[in-house]
């Protein structure tokens, strides 16, 4: 029996997609966008009683090593599976498999949603990834989607297994310690800017008045969109690897922070951060406390530092041959400059 990835996926899906006479996996391609998990897009050709049907899927597989190790895809799968019927455009995700006999490492399969993923980087001509009309159309829709995500009744959806923080500062404390632990585990010399930021975070934990589902990576680059000028629309929310329960403003801060502005002034290349905050406040009915957002923006850069350090460690140890992990060694100084700016160091030192 042949043992290509296509054949193995076909055997897996044949047992789950029911009564097809034949099932073939075709046009399988590894995606370049996801830096963490291995992502494969493919079509399934089903023939039933002479009728041919094509369905598009995406498989996400744990990498041997990577940015968010140690990996466990199951919580993410359980969240996506639970949200499969929610109006939120998360990809319906029917299948998870942990048995290494199938694809060597755990993976899940989700339906492929329409659209493209704009990335937060300027084009060759210096323009951003979205036109003005696209930004105008998307910004309110993104704010509404985030508000909807935070309105999900996570208890009723059976998502309590994610672990709810206690009221007060516990949500912030948990996230700071989660990422501090990853910095520590990377066992690399932490830049002093990062060490200082961690000290500041620990002594400025904000109190959250409610606990919601938090996507954890809600930003341009994880949105599927269909471009149509002022009719541009959001068709999918991707990459739920960092989903957890916590302070909803963490998502707003992550989406607004320096990382996703492509060198411009706009939160996730959409609108200025204050405008996105206003749109989110209107959509959610929630008050947006600027001090809390600032705390989570500093945490965002610390979190990205921890992710990069983890990738650098995996590459340095030879546990991954993915050269994209190595480029983080060249991205980290930009991140430290951003963190220094956000902490007010440039202003304190009289610089720009």
């Amino acid at each position, binding site marked *: 029996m042949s043992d290509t990835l296509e054949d193995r996926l076909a055997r897996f899906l044949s047992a789950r997609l029911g009564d097809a006479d034949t099932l073939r996996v075709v046009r399988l391609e590894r995606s370049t966008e996801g830096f963490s998990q291995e992502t494969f897009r493919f079509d399934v050709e089903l023939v039933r009683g002479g009728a041919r049907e094509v369905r598009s899927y995406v498989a996400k597989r744990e990498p041997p090593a990577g940015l968010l190790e140690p990996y466990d895809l199951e919580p993410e799968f359980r969240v996506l599976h639970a949200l499969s019927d929610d109006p939120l455009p998360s990809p319906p995700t029917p299948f998870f498999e942990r048995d290494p006999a199938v694809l060597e490492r755990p993976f899940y399969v989700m339906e492929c949603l329409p659209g493209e993923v704009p990335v937060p980087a300027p084009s060759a001509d210096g323009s951003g990834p979205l036109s003005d009309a696209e930004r105008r159309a998307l910004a309110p829709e993104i704010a509404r989607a985030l508000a909807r995500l935070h309105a999900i009744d996570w208890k009723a959806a059976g998502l309590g297994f994610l672990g709810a923080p206690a009221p007060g500062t516990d949500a912030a404390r948990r996230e700071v310690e989660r990422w501090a632990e990853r910095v520590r585990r990377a066992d690399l010399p932490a830049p*002093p800017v990062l060490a*200082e930021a961690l000290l500041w975070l620990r*002594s400025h934990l904000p109190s959250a008045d409610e606990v919601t589902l938090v996507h954890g990576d809600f930003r341009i680059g994880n949105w599927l969109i269909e471009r149509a000028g002022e009719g541009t629309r959001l068709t999918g929310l991707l990459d739920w690897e960092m989903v957890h329960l916590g302070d909803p403003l963490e998502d707003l801060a992550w989406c607004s922070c320096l990382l996703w502005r492509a060198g411009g002034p706009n939160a996730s290349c959409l609108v200025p951060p204050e405008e996105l905050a206003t749109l989110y406040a209107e959509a959610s009915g929630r008050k947006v406390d600027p001090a809390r957002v600032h705390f989570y923006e500093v945490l965002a850069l610390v979190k990205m530092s921890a992710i990069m*350090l983890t990738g650098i460690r995996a590459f340095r140890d030879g546990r991954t041959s993915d*050269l994209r992990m190595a480029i983080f060694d060249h991205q980290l100084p930009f991140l430290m400059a951003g963190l220094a700016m956000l902490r007010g160091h440039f202003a304190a030192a009289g*610089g720009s």
Partner: protein
Amino acid sequence: MLIPPEALIDGCMRTLLESVLPDVGSRFARGQLYAVADVLRNLRDRVEPKASLAEAESKSAADALAAAIAALSEAGAGEAAARLRSAAAAAPASAVARAAALESAVTLAFEALEAVPPAAGEAARRALVAHLVQQTLRDVAQLKPSLLNEISKG
């Protein structure tokens, strides 16, 4: 740089031979790719980090630590000053290791300041923050424009 040049070159070799080569169709292109691999593996043991960069880093960190130690002593935070003095003095002589040790001492300095009343630590913090700013500017100045967009889109 957190990845030593040898590890970086080893990684480039792995990527070329394991991830790129299988998808290269033309014989000429495959030959060129093997030539790149040959160049890289012979380069591997001949490169090391630029000492002048590490020396600039060491000088900046040592100056900041000296200013912080003086400021803490003057403000009556003698114990914190002594800890920093001892950490700075323990830095080895070789350029790269010295820069790393002094950077650790800067981190230690920020930790020490947590236990010092804000007013007493203010001048020391100013000196350390000025170093952080200079450090980030030096590091960023070394970088070439990112190809992240191309890397993401393929």
